[in-house]
């Protein structure tokens, strides 16, 4: 008799551990979602089904402004970071291996490695100095900060897409009278589009739910949705926070599903 190959699924307790892990992952989120439909004024005691908290959140001026601010920042940050990430990815992959390639990758992905709180404090100090020196206020600081930490998230899917692309395609374009710009515009860019879209969506999601850096960099009256919620938690907790969280969760899941479909659909 041949022995069966080792499989973790046949270890004793595998099923139980798996179920426990899934409960740990999803029980809090399910609770959060369920209580967002609570008619009562509590996040822990069920008082019947209601959409009141969604309506309240929707009609809350502060929530509205925070939501709009979040979307504006995420849109600009995703746009800028994707543009920069595309340039970086084209620059690092559309050529042979070069000296210091790994160092460049590491440097581009710096935000993934530096603790977020460190970046937050650093930005607070830097932007504080700039504010004092120039007197310039506004959302620009937040957009700049978000752009910076979104770059690696946009960069990775774009680079992955480029690495899967035959270098001889651009050579063929050049052979067929395309100038370097035409080759990029008519060959590289259309083939890269799914990667760019995926990168932008990922960057958008990352920007949308950032708390730490936003909390440090924002000025008074510049709450985004996550920092507004953080502020609310310091006061009385109502299921309104649950409702906002659920809305944010749905938006994020939709975007990430889109990201998944784009990256999967174009790979084969």
């Amino acid at each position, binding site marked *: 008799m041949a022995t069966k190959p080792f499989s973790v699924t046949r270890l004793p307790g595998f099923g139980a551990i798996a179920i426990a892990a899934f409960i740990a992952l999803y029980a809090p989120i399910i609770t959060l979602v369920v209580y967002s439909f609570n008619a009562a004024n509590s996040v822990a005691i069920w008082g019947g089904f209601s959409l009141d908290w969604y309506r309240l959140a929707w009609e809350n001026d502060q929530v509205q402004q925070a939501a709009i601010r979040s979307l504006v920042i995420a849109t600009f940050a995703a746009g800028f970071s994707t543009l920069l990430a595309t340039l970086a990815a084209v620059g690092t992959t559309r050529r042979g291996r070069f000296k210091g390639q790994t160092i460049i990758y590491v440097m581009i992905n710096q935000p993934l490695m530096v603790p977020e709180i460190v970046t937050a404090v650093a930005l607070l100090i830097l932007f504080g100095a700039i504010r004092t020196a120039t007197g310039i206020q506004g959302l620009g600081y937040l957009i700049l900060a978000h752009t910076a930490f979104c770059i690696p998230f946009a960069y990775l899917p774009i680079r992955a897409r480029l690495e899967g692309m*035959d270098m*001889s*395609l651009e*050579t*063929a*374009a*050049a*052979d*067929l*009278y*395309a*100038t370097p710009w*035409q080759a990029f515009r*008519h*060959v590289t860019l*259309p*083939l890269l589009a799914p990667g760019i879209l995926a990168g932008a969506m990922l960057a958008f999601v990352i920007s949308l739910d950032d708390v730490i850096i936003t909390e440090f960099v924002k000025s008074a009256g510049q709450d985004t949705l996550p920092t507004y919620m953080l502020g609310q938690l310091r006061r009385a907790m109502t299921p309104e926070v649950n409702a906002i969280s659920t809305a944010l969760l749905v938006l994020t899941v939709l975007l990430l599903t889109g990201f998944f479909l784009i990256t999967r659909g174009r790979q084969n």
Partner: protein
Amino acid sequence: MTTTAIEARAVTKRFGAGEITALDAVSISIAQGEFFTLLGPSGCGKTTLLRCIAGFETPTDGAILLSGSDITASPPNKRNVNTVFQSYALFPHLTVAQNIGFGLKMRGDDAAKVDKRTEEMLALVKMEQMASRRPEQLSGGQQQRVALARALAPAPEVLLLDEPLSALDLKLRKEMQSELKRLQSETGITFVFVTHDQEEALTMSDRIAVMSHGQLQQVGSPREIYTRPVNRFVADFIGETNFLEAEAKGDSVTLSTGDTLPLPGAGTGPITLAVRPELLRLTEPGEGDLTATVRDSVYFGTDWHCHLLLSDGTEVVARMQSPPTGESGIGKGQPVGLAFAPGALRVLED
């Protein structure tokens, strides 16, 4: 009166910090309308030379001329030369028709002209039915045709083909070989064809350049290359060859077996002789030019290959249509005579 399409003047290409020499002062002149083949084993520099002509590589030294004008420094998009890539490199996001029209569009031809030329090209490679397909929906042979049509559409002065048939199976390869010949005679465009397949080179080319280690070994018609190889490399690489060591003495040579044969203009000193197996004939023992012993004989259907040992132990192969001693072949260890056909002995340069 022939005009020159492509001329390479002492083209040298070094890679890395100069330690790898891919091309070593290669000079070559390819005539207008010629089917010219660069033949050699992998790493001999044939593809590098092709890439230098296309403009994907810049020679370290030397010049490349297209119809007499120096294009050494021109980028690929400024050269009226198109390439059929080994991987085809079809644009996956474009249809067959868009792929074929790409070069014309990039060159700035107007849409009507692009459409008309694309249709002509689709007809030329018999792919009219596939115009709106994507490359991934095509078979290897069909992709090959699209790659050809795409490269021919802008009517280049020279078409470069980088081992375009290597990815196809044998039957399809034979088909595409005659297809390529047809396309070349219909368009009249100069073809520069790279291959490591000697049979492909012999059957398709007007002229062949045999390359090895970045150097040209011999340039000539398939017949010249086959019947009059200049050196051991060419004789060995193209077809099967017997090599005989000999001592030249003016108008005769003395083989390592001690036999002396007349060979006008043999020169003096030690030489290597090349003899094609089909130019050797078995005779009765004691007749012919040499004596030999049969080591083995193998039936190939179209002919027999007899492996023979000469008196000094040198092995030679003779090829013949029918066995000399009846249908049963010849027995091992049997002594035979060996005769050279007129002109069979070729003196090699090195």
